[in-house]
């Protein structure tokens, strides 16, 4: 039953997700370096630069990078791979099948933090960089806002799967979501075609 009720699964996972991100990646968030976004937008109007700056604050404050920037092993443990900043699950990262869920342990993630397995199947975090082919480059601002409001790809398509907590993000104001979109469109594009999710078959 739960396989088809991903929205419910996402809601159930939200407390878990916030806990995981808060504990496991707290040092990673601190290490996220400043991107050249605001400087780039500085070539436009001051208002545009301020919008990007606000978006940068929100993206970092809301933990977007925890899942959308792959982790790599550094001298002090896992750290975000800044060459792949916000570019989602790396296309060249091939994984074995996820472990079988046992008892109450129903969700698992890979070491990069970009592949998640649960009752819905396997989901891979999206490329949020402005690459036109593989990222958000071809998305409009309205599509981005609608995606977070409806939990559907570009606001109209397939469901956005757990553990993406689109529901609380969907409560953000239009102004904040526009700022997030402006920032995401200002960062360095990374060409990375994230694989499609694998949908669990009912009963398995």
């Amino acid at each position, binding site marked *: 039953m739960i396989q088809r009720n991903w929205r*419910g699964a996402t809601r159930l996972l939200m407390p878990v997700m916030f806990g995981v991100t808060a504990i496991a990646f707290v040092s990673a968030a601190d290490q996220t370096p400043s991107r050249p976004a605001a400087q780039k937008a500085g070539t436009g109007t001051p208002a545009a630069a301020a919008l990007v700056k606000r978006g940068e604050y929100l993206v970092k404050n809301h933990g977007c990078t925890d899942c959308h920037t792959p982790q790599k092993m550094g001298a002090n443990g896992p750290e975000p791979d800044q060459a792949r900043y916000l570019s989602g699950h790396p296309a060249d990262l091939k994984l074995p099948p996820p472990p079988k869920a046992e008892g109450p342990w129903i969700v698992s993630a890979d070491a990069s933090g970009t592949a998640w397995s649960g009752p819905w199947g396997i989901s891979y975090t999206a490329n949020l960089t402005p690459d036109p082919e593989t990222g958000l480059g071809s998305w409009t601002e309205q599509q981005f806002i609608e995606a977070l409001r409806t939990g559907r790809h570009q606001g*109209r398509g397939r469901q956005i799967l757990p553990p993406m907590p689109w529901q609380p993000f969907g409560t953000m104001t239009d102004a904040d979501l526009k700022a997030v979109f402006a920032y995401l469109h200002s960062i360095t594009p990374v060409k990375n075609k994230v694989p499609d999710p694998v949908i669990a078959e009912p009963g398995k």
Partner: protein
Amino acid sequence: MRATVSALAVAAAIAAIPARTLSIGTLPPRLQDTGLYADWQSKTIASRNLPYSPQYPLWSDGAGKTRWLSIPRGKWIDASNPERWIFPVGTRLWKEFAFNGHRVETRFIERSAQGWLFATYQWNEDETDAPLAPEFGVARSAEIRPGVRHSIPSRTDCLACHAASDARVLGINTLQLSADRDPNAPHAEPVPEGGVSLQALVERGLLRGLPPRYLRVPPRIDARTPTARAALGYLNTNCGICHTSTGQLASLGFSLRYSLGLPVSASPAAVLTAVGRPSHFQVPGAKVRLAPGNPDASVLVARISSRNPVTQMPPLGTHLVDDDAVRLIRKWITDDLPAVQLAADKHTKETKR
């Protein structure tokens, strides 16, 4: 522990309600309170609620659907733009869904002074009550066939389709209520007793401003063949709500919306934006949206033939492939599109001379 987890889940669910979602408090708590029925016990529909049936119905996994429209006294629909009707404040619409002869849900739309309201009411098993369905829908409600259950949509899913159209109302427009109904439309329904057409709405004073030509000659899809007419009508209804050249998915450059008034010789948007056009979403063996003469190489066919949630189109509102529609679209691609492409190629060559 279980109580703690449940409490956390409930708290998360409450926090998860998108800000734009309508407050439940603004919606009638039961279907009985929406004004559909004159008498609930006998299920007698109030006489001011007019039945209607679009000539190209949306595929809903074979549900039996019954629909009603209500326009407040003294008000009317403004159809001066025949492609985008403006419904007055107070407009109400209902669509009842039944599977295997039993009512399952009745969807309700109202244009209130504050904006459009979308809700659905879930019938109980003995059809004695129909309370407001939960905000997040019901993933598995009535059985459609063994192993497959109907999903009652969440309120955000209502918006995913209805907010894609400026008119907000999807099944009532100039083409859908034309008296020149397409006999080959998949799952075409007979007009219900007392069902309204364009002419009937105008005569009742409920539709104003419609260009008179649509009353002189009821509108139709002027296609080269009956197959093309039905295919374009099907795509217009089932895909052309989101896939338009002007809506939020306009950036895809892919429109399946049919524009009224196209002469037979003109290529509709479905041909111009799909035939031979590369598809961003790819499936094995198919790279273009529509491949003339080759349905197996057409991504559109692969997607309407799938119910894998990642691949399927439409992405919501259906768990079963519409086999009749797949046969129709395959026939259109095989029999009609090669000639369409030849004509287009010839036109291109002549233009270059």
